[in-house]
């Protein structure tokens, strides 16, 4: 393999004539394990730079606290409330939306349930009407217990017998 390009880049690197992009190429080249022996001497320099760039982040949350405490002590707090309020508005709205959703759900459920109850109460009445109509149509009142009771009641009220009642509207 021809390493002329890499060799040329290395030369220009030590002359500080390479661009950031070219230095990235060198870093990538030396990150590979199959670096030819005559270029091995440079590998550790580029690997060192690559490793340092990925260095573990030493300063953690305790550092943040320390700096913020110092600013607080100086009475020069960063205007974090601007950010905090922004967050709480969102955070406050969220349970509100949830509550609204819950209420909407409840209303929907209750509405459906009421409708269902209406249906269960109205359906038998309709059936009775249909039954009544059918029994009238068949003119077989004697074999229909409901019809018999109805007729009995009518007779009790009017004290008269109405054997041929017209069908209900």
């Amino acid at each position, binding site marked *: 393999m021809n390493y002329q390009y890499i060799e040329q880049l290395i030369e220009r690197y030590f002359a500080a004539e390479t661009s950031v992009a070219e230095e990235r190429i060198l870093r990538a080249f030396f990150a590979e394990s199959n670096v030819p022996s005559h270029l091995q001497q440079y590998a550790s320099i580029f690997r060192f730079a690559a490793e*340092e760039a990925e260095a573990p982040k030493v300063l953690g949350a305790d550092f943040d606290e320390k700096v913020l405490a110092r600013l607080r002590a100086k009475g020069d707090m*960063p205007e974090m409330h601007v950010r905090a309020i922004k967050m709480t508005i969102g955070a406050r709205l969220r349970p509100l939306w949830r509550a609204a959703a819950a209420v909407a759900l409840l209303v929907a459920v209750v509405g459906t349930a009421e409708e269902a109850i209406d249906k269960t109460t109205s359906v038998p009445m309709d059936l009775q009407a249909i039954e009544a109509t059918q029994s009238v149509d068949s003119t077989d009142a004697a074999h229909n217990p409901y019809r018999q009771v109805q007729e009995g009641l009518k007779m009790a009220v009017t004290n008269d017998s109405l054997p041929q009642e017209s069908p209900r509207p």
Partner: protein
Amino acid sequence: MKEIDFLNDLLPLKHKLYCLAQRITLDSLEAEDVVEDTLVRVWERRKTLTEVDNLEVYCLTICRNLALDRAERKDAQHATIDANFDAPADTTALPDAQLEADERLVWVRRSFETLPEKQRTALQLRDIEGHSYQEVATAMDISESDVKVTLHRARQALKDKLSHLRSHL
């Protein structure tokens, strides 16, 4: 530039600032203090920073200046680090390839730390963080051609130190 937000704009720079401060002071505790001072200093000056177009580079400049102030007070300590550094301490054990590679990185690190501060900082900002020549120049308050000369010397010196160490094996 819009108004600076401490948590969003400044605090996330702490890792990069720490790396630079560590490179200059060669002391992790000192470096942490420098980062803290840098963030507080920049925050205090936020009202005057509207014309700063690259906040990160500005922070790097402040960080370097504060680190240099501290490093000046610790010059004696640097001398002892230099004195302690000679050749790799233990070359008796025959390392396998991985150990050897790790060891080489330790050499680079040690060689790096013996470079003058100006060269260490230039390498940190360019080779490790990947800043442009112009950004390095601004951060170090020197000309771009001075950056290139410094980088050239630093890279050459690092190479020479490593080949010197290799010849001692």
